[in-house]
């Protein structure tokens, strides 16, 4: 995947996860919502996991992804 597509998808996923902070979703569900294939989404989610923007939870029904809120401190 070319860099531009990857970045655009990463931003789209950030927007989705940030806008649904309490939701946990599967890669298939995310694929349906974004209209992007699972194969294309997979490296995007891996990148977001690597940056700790999202986390992966293992469940009986498979892997779920959810947003990790940034650290916030009011000084």
């Amino acid at each position, binding site marked *: 995947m070319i860099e531009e597509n990857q*970045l655009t998808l990463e931003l789209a996923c950030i927007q989705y996860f940030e806008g649904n902070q309490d939701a946990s979703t599967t890669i298939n569900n995310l694929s349906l919502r974004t209209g992007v294939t699972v194969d294309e989404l997979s490296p995007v989610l891996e990148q977001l996991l690597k*940056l700790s923007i999202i986390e992966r939870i293992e469940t009986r029904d498979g892997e779920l992804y959810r947003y990790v809120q940034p650290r916030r401190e009011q000084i």
Partner: protein
Amino acid sequence: MKSEILKSVLAAYHSYLMVPVTLLNHKSEIVSTSSRAYASDCQLTLKNALEAYSIIDSVAAVQMPYSVPKNTQYLVTYGGYYDDQKCYVLAGPFYVSSPKTCENDISSLTVNQVKQSYQTIAELGDVIQRLNNDKSGSLFSYLSMLDLFYEIDQSQTVIDDNRLHQHLTSYLPNITFSGIAVKTNGAHTYKVTKFFANDQVDLCEYTFNLGEGFLGQSVVTMQPNMWENITHDLRTINLQAYGLYPKALYCYPLTIENGNVAVLFGGSTTNPLFSSETMFMLRQVFQFIERSIAYQRIDKNLSDVHTRLNVVNEIFAVISKIKDKSRILYVLTDATLTLVKGRFSAILTKPETDVQSFDMVSRGLQSDEVNKYKEDLINRYFQEEDSVKSDSNSTLKQTTWGDWVYESPLTSGNKVLGVLCVNIANKDHNGKHTEFLESISQIGGIAIDLINVEQSKKNADVVIECLFGAIEEFEPNQYEKMKKMLRGVKDFSEYLRLNQEEKLQCLKACKLSAYSLSFLENKGFNQSLIQIIGHYNELTKDMIPSKPSPLPSQILFVIHYYISNGEIPLFHKHLHEELKIKFSAFILQENEEDSEKITQALPQQKNISVEFDVIQVQFKLSKREIDVLELIIQGISNKEIAQTLYISEHTVKNHLSNIFRKLSVKDRSQAIAKCYHLSLNQDSE
């Protein structure tokens, strides 16, 4: 053979010789050309030449220069090569001093250029002639090698592909080894990263410094160099340590990514001399690679710019939909981290009011790092009371624990609202993110500022409602009066057709009008609201205003006066005359059904009567129009006026239109108000 190969070869020849080159078949038909502009001239030239050699059997080369036809001087070279039983002619470069048809199209060459071209042509002709004479298929091999460049993935540079060196050693006569050395992370050290040799020698991992040996010398000079008969040259000692004993060496330094230099090299361990053919080929191939890399670099830069614009656009689209400051901070933090792919990112925002605190949102930072970094940022960006910075460029800073960070202030106008920070892997990053981060921080700054303004408006609205509610609790009578006043302000604002913002401003001021100015100051209300109340207070206390009162203050006052005294403040000196008329008309219109109220609204103490004679002269009203006006002021309807004056209703309407026009009023109530107002002024004079 692929047409792309032909095009690339001809383009290379064109570029090298700086004149067009065309490939024709034995029928003088154009097979491929480096420039369509000159193709027909070339065709004509070659046609004439081919007529002289009507049968080209297999491969042929003709001595240069060649002149055809008579009296027309062409500087022509052509060689042929044999492929798939077809015969082609390679033509060019050429120079035309006449005929006239060509003069405008082909630039003239200076004497020196002609001389230089002749030498180059001779060299080229020699190479072509040799290639054709030995029929070894070398030209085809050379073309195949160029074709290889098209096969190599465009995302890779050709220098990263081993096949290049394999081809060079396979196809070029006397070239037995080939490789490339690139700069290592060290400042002046180079390392061979690709190497191919016909024997078992492997030069990979060989490192050298600037100026060291032949390769190091080539980097320093940045010029292609060729060395022959170097078997006993001491500069080969380091190469010999790797088992390479070159007898001839050719180096070609070229600029690759980020201004770094690489050295392409090739040579022979068997032959101490390069043939002119090999020299020519090596130079062509390396030049082609250099241009290919330059093209890829330009293409990559363009693509990067395009990507950044798209990403900035995406971020802007996302942020513009978000109305919550926290979410904007989260998106900015995550988006910048995603773009730069650093270890952490953070945003520190400045408090809006004294009771708030600094807000630090971060991802990837440890607790102790957050504490150290936020103090550092506050000290550097917000130490001064009012942080105003003209310089909003991003800067590269080092954290106290040694990480490199791009810091870009979040600005709106000349206010610094915060700082966007993102870690980069190393200091030597080429800065491609700088402008990108500046754009994002500017977008973020504006978005945060808009939200802050919106939030402070909402906060002020809550306080206004609380203060208004408090009046009900502590002063119920006053509260009832304020409610009447609010209704009046609302209706009169609508009557005046004020826009929504002006109307809201009047209502907010009305709700606060019971409080003293000293109480309202420093409560976070906007200054225009405070000013309205200040001027309103001056009007109620009949003070001489410091400057003309704004319209909302006057509206508040006329309503307040009417509710308090039951009459229109027609004699108030500091009210705008037009507002008085409009307010009179408004009151008349509001009480149209109740003539008693209208009578009460008009000031009784002056015992005024309308001066119709004065009005008739001043506004040039006809006798009949004055009759109609008198009846209007008595509150009589159109139908009754018609019956009283024995005219039709239609005529009454005509008279009314004329009266309104001459008095410059819009309706009946404004006309009445204006008549009373004029008569009052007349009376007071």
